C-alpha cells in the first residue's frame, strides 16, 4: 500500500483538532481529498457525512429517461417504459420476436433476413433466460410495461397494499391537516423554526397548501376549531383510533395463491429434485414483494430508478454540488470540491521507490508513487530503529501562489507542536517526525503547466528556494546522517508542485503504522479585500515587493499522513502480508 494522506473534516467533533491518529475513531474524521467539498460561504471543508443531500432528479439507468418526481411514486420507483431486468441474473432484458415456425424437417433453416414475428418476449443476452419460460409474451414490442401492468396490479400483494393505502388515507389526511394548522403559525415568526423545516420542504409545502384559505371553506385555525369543538376535536384527540382493517385474503390460505410462505412452500420443498428449482436469495431480494420460492415463478422486473443528488452545506445551506438535470450529462452545474481549494498532498517514501524502480526517483513524485504502488514488499518496508526520509508533494490548485506551513501534531500532546521533539519527549511516541518548520511557497496553478512536462524552474521566478531549504535543514540537522543529501526541507519546485522532504525516526520498540496528524496552513491572496483597503487592493499587487503586502488570508486544515507499517525489530525477515 502506498503512503496515504487524508484530510480532516471537523464535523464529528466540536473542536477543530482531530483525534490522535492511533485511535480507531481517527479514520472516521479523515477522508480522501476527492470525496470532500468546500463551502465558500463558511470557508470550511465539508465531507459526505455532514452535507445534507437532496434528490435533484430521477432517471432510469437503462433508457436514461428523466422521470418527473410526480410519477416516481405512482410507478413505484421503477422504470415504466421498456426497461426490464432479468430475474435470473439481473442483466438488462431485450425484447425479441419469436423464431419463424419450424418447418419440421429437423434441419435448421436460416432465413437471411428475419421479420419480427409475434409473439414477442423478453430475452436475456447473458444467461439466456426468456420471459416465455414463465409464460409472458407480448403481441407487440412496444409499451411492455403497460402490458405487464395488469400482471403486476393483479398480484395479491399489490392489491393488498392498495387496500392498505386506501384504508389509511383518511387518517393520514386528518393528521397532516391538524399538524399543519398547529405548526404553521409557529413557523412564521421565528426564522430558526423555519430553517429547521427546510429539511422536509415537501411536507411543509404540502401542509401549507392544505392550510391555505379556500373561498367557501372555513379556514382551519386553532381558534375556529376549538369553537367548533365536536367532530374536529374528535379527529385530533383520537388520532390513533381508526377503523379496523380487514385484509382481502386470509393469510393462512394466501400461500396457495402463489404469494409464498406457508404449506405450499413446504410441499414444493418436499418434492424438490434440483436445487436450481429454488430461486436464490439474490434473485428474490430485488423484488418489492415477497415472491414465491420457485425459479419458475420469477418475473421480469422493471429496472429501479436512480437519482441524481445535490448536496448542501449543513451550516449555510448553500449548494456544494449540483448535477446537470439531464440524465445523459455527467457534468455539474455547481461543483465546489475541496480539491479546487486545498493543496493536494501526496506522500512518498524514496527508499520504496528505489527498491521498486531505480529510475523512478528522478521523475516527479506524483508519477513515481503510482509506479511504486504495486510492489513495495519487505525490501521497501520501514524497520524499527531506523530513520527514513519521506517526500510530500503539494500541488496548488489556486490561481494565486500560496505560502504553506506544515506542522506535525504531536501524539499524546494536547497542543499541536512541531515534530522536532526533544529526545526525552520523543520517548513516548514510537516515532518522531521532522518537517521543515518554515513556510514555503507553491506557485500558482496555470493550465499551461499541465502540458509542459519538463520545464526549468527559474523560468517562473522560483529560484529563491535556498533560504527555505536552509531553514528546513536546520530543523533536521541532527538527523542528517547522510551528510550531503538534503532530506528535510524544500526539495523540488516545478510548476505548481512543491516537494518537501521530511524525515521519520522510528523508535526501537515501535510497532503499528507511521501515521501522524499534520496541520497544513496556507496563506493566499484574498479575493475579497477588507473594506478599509478595498480601493487599492488592485494596486498593491504591483508593489507587492514593497513594504505593504497584499491582502492575505490564511486557511488551516488537518491531514493524517500514513506512511505505512513499521516492521518490528524482533523478526527483521518477516514477510509483510498486509
Amino acid at each position, binding site marked *: 500500500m502506498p503512503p496515504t494522506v487524508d484530510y480532516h473534516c471537523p464535523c464529528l467533533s466540536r473542536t477543530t483538532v482531530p483525534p490522535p491518529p492511533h485511535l480507531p475513531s481517527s479514520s472516521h474524521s479523515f477522508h480522501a481529498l476527492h470525496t470532500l467539498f468546500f463551502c465558500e460561504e463558511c470557508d470550511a471543508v465539508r465531507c459526505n457525512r455532514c452535507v445534507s443531500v437532496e434528490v435533484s432528479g430521477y432517471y432510469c439507468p437503462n433508457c436514461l429517461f428523466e422521470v418527473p418526481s410526480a410519477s416516481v411514486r405512482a410507478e413505484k420507483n421503477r422504470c415504466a417504459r421498456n426497461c426490464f431486468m432479468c430475474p435470473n*441474473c439481473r442483466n438488462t432484458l431485450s425484447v*425479441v420476436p419469436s*423464431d419463424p415456425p419450424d418447418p419440421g424437417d429437423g434441419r*435448421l433453416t*436460416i432465413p437471411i433476413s428475419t421479420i419480427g414475428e409475434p409473439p414477442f418476449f423478453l430475452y436475456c443476452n447473458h444467461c439466456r*433466460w*426468456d420471459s416465455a419460460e414463465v409464460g409472458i409474451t407480448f403481441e407487440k414490442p412496444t409499451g411492455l410495461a403497460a402490458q405487464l401492468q395488469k400482471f403486476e396490479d393483479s398480484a395479491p400483494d399489490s392489491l393488498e397494499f392498495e387496500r392498505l393505502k386506501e384504508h389509511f388515507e383518511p387518517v393520514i389526511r386528518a393528521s397532516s391537516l391538524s399538524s399543519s394548522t398547529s405548526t404553521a403559525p409557529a413557523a412564521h415568526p421565528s426564522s430558526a423554526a423555519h430553517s429547521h423545516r427546510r429539511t422536509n420542504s415537501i411536507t411543509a409545502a404540502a401542509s401549507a397548501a392544505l392550510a391555505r384559505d379556500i373561498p367557501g371553506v372555513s379556514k382551519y385555525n386553532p381558534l375556529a376549531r376549538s369553537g367548533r369543538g365536536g367532530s374536529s376535536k374528535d379527529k385530533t384527540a383520537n388520532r390513533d383510533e381508526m377503523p379496523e382493517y380487514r385484509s382481502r385474503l386470509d393469510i393462512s390460505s394466501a400461500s396457495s395463491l402463489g404469494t409464498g410462505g406457508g404449506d405450499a412452500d413446504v410441499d414444493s420443498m418436499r418434492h424438490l429434485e434440483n436445487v*436450481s428449482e429454488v430461486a436464490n436469495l439474490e434473485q428474490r431480494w430485488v423484488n418489492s414483494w415477497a415472491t414465491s420460492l420457485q425459479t419458475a415463478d420469477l418475473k421480469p422486473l422493471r429496472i429501479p430508478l436512480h437519482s441524481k443528488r445535490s448536496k448542501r452545506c449543513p451550516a449555510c445551506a448553500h449548494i456544494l454540488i449540483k448535477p446537470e438535470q439531464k440524465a445523459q450529462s455527467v457534468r455539474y452545474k455547481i461543483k465546489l470540491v475541496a480539491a479546487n481549494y486545498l493543496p493536494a498532498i501526496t506522500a512518498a517514501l524514496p527508499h520504496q521507490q528505489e527498491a521498486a524502480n531505480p529510475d523512478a526517483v528522478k521523475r516527479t513524485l506524483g508519477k513515481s508513487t503510482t509506479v511504486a504502488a504495486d510492489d513495495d514488499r519487505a525490501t521497501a518496508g520501514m524497520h524499527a530503529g531506523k530513520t527514513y526520509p519521506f517526500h510530500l508533494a503539494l500541488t496548488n490548485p489556486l490561481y494565486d501562489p500560496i505560502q504553506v506551513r506544515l506542522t506535525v501534531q504531536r501524539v499524546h500532546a494536547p497542543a499541536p507542536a512541531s515534530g522536532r521533539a526533544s529526545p526525552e519527549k520523543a520517548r513516548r511516541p514510537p516515532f518522531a517526525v521532522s518537517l521543515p518548520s518554515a513556510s514555503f511557497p507553491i506557485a500558482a496553478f496555470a493550465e499551461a503547466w499541465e502540458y509542459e512536462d519538463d520545464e526549468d524552474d527559474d523560468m517562473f521566478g522560483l529560484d529563491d528556494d535556498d533560504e527555505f531549504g536552509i531553514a528546513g535543514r536546520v530543523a533536521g540537522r541532527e538527523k542528517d546522517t547522510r551528510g550531503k543529501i538534503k532530506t528535510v526541507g524544500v526539495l523540488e519546485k516545478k510548476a505548481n508542485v512543491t516537494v518537501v522532504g521530511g524525515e521519520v525516526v522510528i523508535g526501537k520498540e515501535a510497532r503499528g503504522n507511521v501515521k501522524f496528524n499534520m496541520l497544513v496552513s496556507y496563506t493566499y491572496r484574498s479575493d475579497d479585500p477588507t473594506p478599509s483597503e478595498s480601493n487599492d487592493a488592485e494596486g498593491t499587487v504591483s508593489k507587492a515587493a514593497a513594504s505593504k503586502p497584499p491582502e492575505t488570508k490564511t486557511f488551516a486544515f488537518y491531514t493524517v499522513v500514513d506512511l505505512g507499517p513499521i516492521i518490528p525489530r524482533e523478526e527483521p525477515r518477516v514477510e509483510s502480508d498486509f
Partner: protein
Amino acid sequence: MAPIRDKYTIHSKAVVCQDVELKGDITIGSGTIVHPKATIFAIAGPIVIGSGCIIEEGAIIVNRRKEVMRIGDDNLFEIGCRVESPTVGDFNTISTRARVHHTVRIASYCVVGAGCLVVPTDDEYLDDYTVIYGPAAERRTWSGRGKVQEADLRRKHAEYLREMLPKFNRLRRGEGS
C-alpha cells in the same frame, strides 16, 4: 516428444489472416474466419475446424490429446478465450476471456459466458443449450427460443468479416492451394 509436424489444410473460402499462430496438423473448413493474433495449437493430435466458425483475436485453441479435436460449424470464439475441449458441436459461443478445459466436451448451442472458467477435474459433457454465466460460472439450460435469429446473426457476422478482413489483412493460404 516428436517435433510437431506442421500441416495446414485451409479451405479456399476460409479467411485466415497472416498474423495467426498455427502449429501442428490443422484443418480449417469453408467460410471459417480466423482473426489476426489468434492461436491454434495442435500439440498432440490434429485439429479440425468446421465451416462458418469465427475465431477472434487472442483466442487460443489447443489440442492436448492424441485424438482429433473436432470443432463443428458456426461456432464463435470471442476475444481472448481459451478452448481445449476435445469436441465442440455447432453454434456454440465461447465468450471473451472464458476458459474451457480439455476435460469438457461441448455439444451444440452452448454458451460459455465472459470470463467463465469451465475447468472440472473429471471429464464432463455439456449438453445442448447449456448456458454458463456469471462470476460463479452458474449453469442453466436455454430454452432455445431465438436460436434461429442468433444463427442468422452469426451468419451475417461471418459474412461481414469475410468481406472486410481481407481488405485490411494479408491472408494465409493452405498448402494445397
